[in-house]
């Protein structure tokens, strides 16, 4: 502790001495009297710094302002030494420190203060972030900079008024300028939508400020479905539809939100379908299976919300696969396969033919029906001659042809 105070002493003393040294130097050399003794000016006022006439070789006035350093030369005046501050300096609020110099030597120095106008002439506003989430946790900030005629921030304690239109409500607030700015944190309302704000000063208005209030995270929802029929014909589409998905404050979630639909089939296989919401509703299509099945369907917004589970039952549409084997042409015709009304099953129904030799599967061929039928040409198969067992599978049914000579 002792050591520290010694250190401070050692550091501070020279500093103080140094400061004295700087201050004392100029005024001692030549006594120049300042005529104009006003030190506080109003912004825009003409400023003259006048000294009693002294014969100086090359007088100049060095002005340091927030714009930087400017060197002024005296105006042509016999009786006194007069410096007129240029326009750009007198329009800028703040402090100007000046120093009168003759050649290299400083003669006198001083300070001026220029005070900004109380009257607000224009208002700069900034708001951000431009969109926030409804519910009161998220917030945006509106920052205003009221300015006088010459674009100086108005002095502290000036007052501006903030107007807000949030939904159907109007909000008015008074903001006090501090350190050149006035600001307000705006916490999001519960209702999503668009809030509009403006700021008004004594003589000026701001531009329009827009804050978008977005819906928050989705909450759980329900799903339902509709379908043309409940047969497993492999051709129709069942549409699974969500209820209107909202956030915790009943705001409909943003359009385009992805909802994933997960389906568990009777045999334990999984399927995924997905859809995006419009007005909070997502509709996912589901292709009908080709054999009777029972789907458990659930929709989720990954990690954030989920629906109830819905069970979808599909009844068997095909009850028989007539199979004929033409010995001489080695041709198998499956069909006509008939659907639930006795009509041909729609084209593209898959029929699989599996060839077994001594109970081992040696070949699988997949074909599609046309006009309810499909043909398998066993001659083209490139398998050695012999006896085979053939199984034909379609719509969950299996037909077996035993000991076929190929």
């Amino acid at each position, binding site marked *: 502790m002792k050591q520290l105070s010694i250190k401070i002493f050692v550091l501070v003393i020279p500093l103080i001495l140094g400061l004295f040294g700087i201050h004392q130097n100029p005024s001692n050399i030549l006594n120049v009297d300042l005529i104009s003794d006003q030190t506080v000016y109003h912004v825009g006022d003409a400023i003259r710094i006048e000294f009693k006439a002294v014969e100086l070789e090359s007088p100049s006035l060095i002005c340091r302002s927030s714009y930087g350093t400017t060197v002024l030369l005296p105006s042509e005046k016999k009786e006194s030494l007069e410096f007129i501050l240029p326009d750009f300096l007198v329009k800028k609020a703040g402090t100007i420190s000046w120093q009168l110099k003759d050649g290299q030597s400083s003669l006198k120095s001083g300070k001026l203060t220029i005070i900004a106008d109380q009257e607000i002439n224009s208002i700069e506003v900034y708001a951000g972030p431009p969109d926030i989430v409804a519910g009161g946790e998220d917030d945006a900030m509106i920052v205003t900079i009221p300015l006088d005629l010459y674009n100086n921030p108005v002095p502290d304690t000036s007052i501006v008024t903030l107007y807000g239109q949030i939904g159907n409500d109007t909000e008015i607030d008074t903001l006090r300028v501090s350190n050149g700015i006035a600001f307000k944190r705006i916490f999001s309302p519960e209702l999503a939508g668009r809030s509009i704000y403006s700021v008004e000063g004594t003589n000026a208005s701001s531009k329009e400020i827009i804050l978008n209030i977005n819906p928050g995270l989705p909450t759980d929802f329900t799903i339902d479905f509709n379908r043309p029929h409940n047969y497993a014909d492999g*051709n129709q589409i069942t549409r699974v539809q969500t209820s209107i998905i909202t956030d915790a404050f009943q705001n409909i979630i943003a359009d*385009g939100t992805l909802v994933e639909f997960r389906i568990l089939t009777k045999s334990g296989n*999984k399927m995924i379908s997905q859809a995006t919401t419009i007005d909070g509703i997502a509709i996912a299509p*589901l292709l009908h299976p080709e054999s009777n099945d029972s789907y458990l369907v659930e929709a989720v917004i*990954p990690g*954030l919300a*989920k629906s109830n589970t819905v069970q979808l039952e599909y009844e068997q549409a095909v009850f028989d696969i007539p199979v004929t084997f033409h010995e001489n042409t080695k041709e198998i015709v499956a069909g006509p396969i008939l659907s639930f009304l006795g009509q041909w099953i729609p084209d593209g129904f898959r029929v699989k033919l599996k060839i077994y030799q001594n109970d081992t599967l040696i070949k699988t061929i997949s*074909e*599609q029906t046309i006009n309810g039928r499909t043909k398998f040409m066993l001659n083209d198969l*490139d398998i050695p001659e012999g006896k085979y067992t053939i199984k034909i599978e379609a719509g969950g049914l299996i037909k077996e042809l035993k000991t076929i000579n190929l």
Partner: protein
Amino acid sequence: MVNTTNKYLISALLLGIAFHGSSIFFTLESTYDALIHLFFGNHYAENWFEPWNFKWYTGFTVMSYPPLVHQSIALLSYIGGLKFGLYTVALTAVVLFITGVYRFSLLMTSNRNIAGYAALLCVFSSSFVETLHLFGQLPSIIGISVLLHALPEIYLWLYNGKWRYLITSLSLIAVTVTSHHVTPIFGMVFFIFPLIGMVIMDRAKDDQKDSDKVTFRLFLRAFFKLFKRIVGFGLLSLVLIITCILPYWINTKNNPITQVPIPHGSRDNFIEITSSGLVFFLIPWGILLILLPYIFYRYYSRRFLFFGFSFSLLTLLGTGGTTPIPRLMLGENAFNILTLDRFTLWASIMALPMLGEFTYRFVQGDLKQILQNRFGPVFHRISGWLLAGLFLFMTIFTMSLGYFRPAQPKKIEMLPIVNFLNQDEHYKWRYLTLGFGDQMAWLSAQTNALTVDGNYHSARRLPELTTRAIERLENSKFKGIEGIGSLQQFLTVPEKYNLKYIFANDKFYDPILFYCGWQRLQRLENGIQVWEKINVPPLSKILPRDQFPRYQSVIWGIIPFATVILAFILNIQMIFIRLLKLPAIKRPDYFRHDLKLTRFPKTLVNISHAWFIALMVMTSWGIWQLYIRYDAHQSPENAILAYYDALDFKEFEKAHKLLDPESGKSLDQFMLEMSVGDGLLSSYAKLDSITTTIKSINDSAAIVSVNGSWISPLEQIYRSEIKTVIKRKNKWFLVPEKQDLDLPPDQLMAGNLTKYYNHGRRRVTTEQSHHEDILRQPLVEILSARLVKFNDSYAVIGEIQNIDNVPADVIIKSTLYNSENESLASYNSKFHMKHKLLPKEVTAFRIDFEGIAWQSLDESVPKTYDPDRFTPVELSDLPEKFDLHCESNVSGKELYNEVGIYEMNLNNQSISGTLVNFGLSQVTISQLLVSYYNDSDEIVWVDHHFIDEGIRQQRKQNFDIELKNLETLKVILSDLSTSYINGEQNSEIESKTRERRIPIDDLKLLKPVNRTDFSYIKLQTNNYIGNPK
């Protein structure tokens, strides 16, 4: 003696200017090189003394190529624009070449008629036509032409030692050097050395007045007599070669070419690769091939003995990789750097005087006599027509080669691209062209914007480019793995190069752009697709460059033109004397050595006939071989190969002709089936290789197994299919495939979609975007992140979710650190993620740390193509930590998500299933992202799989994916604390959703499998729409 006008020379000049002058307008711009020279010309036109060019690569120096031709273009461009400059220089080259050949022939044959014939023939010489109209090598032509002009001067200096000739010859050598650096160096060896030999011969002969025989002793004596002149000339030329383009040599020494050798057709085996043989052997030789016996006979006569050696050497070197001799002679290094076609060009030019002489003797000389006496006048006339016909055929064939087999894509209208780059400050980023061919140089000349690519590969500096044997990124698809690999590095980490815009003239590259996270911006009116990458910073105001001493810039800017002016002043006197036929001229000394062309040797006639017949037999055999190889119905294999080939080139009518005519598949039906197919395989892949094995065959049918491999921008595709081929009327035909019979349920579909549009600047202004016009970056959250080691390479994997209300374009970058927190490597995610996320969408991601392939020279470059091949970066230490930086921006594009995954069936080895497209667009390529989870629901690996065939609306596509063996996978670190989203800590964002998170539901995961290395997998689709409507 009164000089008469040489009417042959005058007609040659008139014909040459008329023929080449009118045809260059149709050929020059589609040559390989002309536009590059134009680009250089533009550089000098913009800033004559500036040695640095920012436009290509990341800046390069133009001191890497002799400047004369480029500066001439630049100078002329001030009069009538760049193209005016180019064409004027090309025409000058034509004139210089014809007069050069005339003077060279005159020197060799001492006969103005023969020289006139040679000048006339050189106008149509196939090698010259090829070099000018197919290759566009202007500096090379000007270089060799000026060298030809220098030869008589050199002869005269050496022969009679008049200082005037030394000065004129040196002045011309200087011009040669400043137009092309290789020409004088090799020209010394192949033209000037034999010339010196010839001068010594002549001198020795002149000294020995009484006898015609030059003995070795006499030769040696003459050599010592001329020794001073020879050495003097040699040394002074060497000084000129060095000083005239001094900055070039300094630059070559300071920046040695690090480029790995780029394959060039002139180094191929011409018998194996017939296309190279055609372009680099048959065409430049043309009719000279028939006259080879005569040329050799003449050049191996005593006077031209050294030309004989030189000619033989040039001929041999020009055969490239056909025999191992050129490689042995030049050495491995020089062989791989030089393009050997120049040797053939020089050989063919060296042969021109002899061609002229032969023609002279054939038309009006002793050969005519001999032929007419021996075989009668009809034979002479017929053979005359035959030779003339072949000669003209070669000329026309060469000229039209560029028309029938275009080496370049169709001419692209550049104005829309130039305008695009000028709009909205697009020039503040670098751009890249794809599929432009050499026209990219023309674009670069017109715009101030910079590209990462370039067309002068000797000047490249980026190791990503110099370590690869590719010419340009722009045509990388032709260079297999190296090309696509190089391109991928630029596409994956574009911010490193400030690369934001890509102009694609070839849809081949579209999928790779999409899967690397690029998005389509617009299609310009010239049909060029513009792609952009979000979140790439603009170029900084000051770009790094090399500094050059001022004296170099001054030398470079002044000397080349000074040499031309000097040469002009020095030679002008002679030119005027010759032109105006002023009487003062004395016949040059070389006229003393003309040969009396009276006795054409009989044996030579016989040998020539035999040679001609042999050539014809070889040609016929070659054609027959080609016929056998390509006749489609000849055998089952041929039928299959021709069918696949036709499909590859989209020649559907030809393919249909190969289908069994009795199958009843009409052309209309076939075309229809082809037109509805789309996908990686049918629209973006190029057949790479195909093998056929006949499994069974009898008289009427065959079953053939076909194994094909295709190159696609994304991966190599292997397919094996069984095809049945049937014989009908002794011709083999394919049995057509069955078509998809599935009927979609709906005739008309309706769907609703959310679309997005971002105004950019709402006010039409060039000012910076207004504060309120800047969109907030969407919030995304990293759900998990792990550093894993798998198969000796490291990867960062994890999952990321867009938790905002707007779609987000997401870029993830990861850096690896060692235990000392020193960064080891950094890379972006490439294929293994969805780059565009809808609100609340989750994607798995994987970041591989790629290095620059084959950076060490001893690493052998693989011969076969594999775009999937991956070069892990070499790490200096073991990575222990990582960070993740994620940038998200609003993007409303490429968001197609309406593909469902059905019938997923998982077993221990593979997962199969069906993709169903429920949406309103045809999915061209679907990518399946497969994420692997361990039994505590943690993601451990991410893999991807492309579906080769497209999925049409309401239709299905099956897939079957083999599962990875993750036994060797090791999770090194699982950490979210060093993850940042748009500069913000991930935990800050996570805190917004933390309370609302629900546990991962078991239902989304597939049935667990009985494996020890992972427990679950999850699938996700990422869809590319080739033609968004």
